[in-house]
């Protein structure tokens, strides 16, 4: 199954700045997800997005985070005012095309470094 493409591959930002991470999905998907992995820790669910609305979000996904699909294709994760602890790999994922099962197919990730 085709994967999703994420840009940029690496982003360095100063604490307090806004960042936007992008995901270019394949069309025909309805569900998209954002996950993150802080170095040395588990992969953690952030948010799922269905039909242009948030379907589910975790306790990590606070008011500093937002997701949207501004042009009907690209899927973005915005962090409004970055903190040092936001440094992590951020993964966009899409649903399976196979019988709409719960498998998620991940992009290659964006490494966010907050300094």
């Amino acid at each position: 199954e085709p994967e999703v493409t994420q840009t940029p591959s690496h982003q360095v930002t100063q604490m307090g700045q806004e960042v936007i991470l992008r995901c270019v999905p394949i069309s025909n998907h309805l569900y998209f997800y954002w996950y993150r992995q802080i170095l040395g820790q588990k992969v953690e669910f952030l948010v799922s997005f269905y039909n242009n609305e948030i379907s589910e979000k975790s306790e990590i996904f606070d008011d500093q985070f937002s997701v949207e699909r501004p042009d009907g294709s690209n899927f973005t994760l915005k962090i409004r005012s970055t903190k040092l602890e936001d440094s992590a790999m951020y993964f966009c994922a899409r649903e399976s095309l196979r019988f709409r099962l719960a498998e998620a197919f991940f992009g290659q990730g964006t490494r966010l470094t907050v300094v």
Partner: protein
Amino acid sequence: DQQVKQNSPSLSVQEGRISILNCDYTNSMFDYFLWYKKYPAEGPTFLISISSIKDKNEDGRFTVFLNKSAKHLSLHIVPSQPGDSAVYFCAASIKLTSGSRLTFGEGTQLTVNP
């Protein structure tokens, strides 16, 4: 959050032998279980999954076993190859279908020695 736990941070096996990766879970609501493989600087790659109504699923060299009563699953790789060296994550979902969050374990670093 310890709902999914992989107790072995690392495993080393010889090429051609069997690799067995283990995973335990605590949430009885989990209905679907998955294994992912991850190389450094890449996203997790889906390997194999199993529904809670089954106890075994096989795909080529990869077999996943589920013991619901023990809340335990394992991934068997036979025969192991050096290219299998990666971090393996188990994950669980409370739904079989799209839209449910995946809860991941900590991962196990598998090293297959030539």
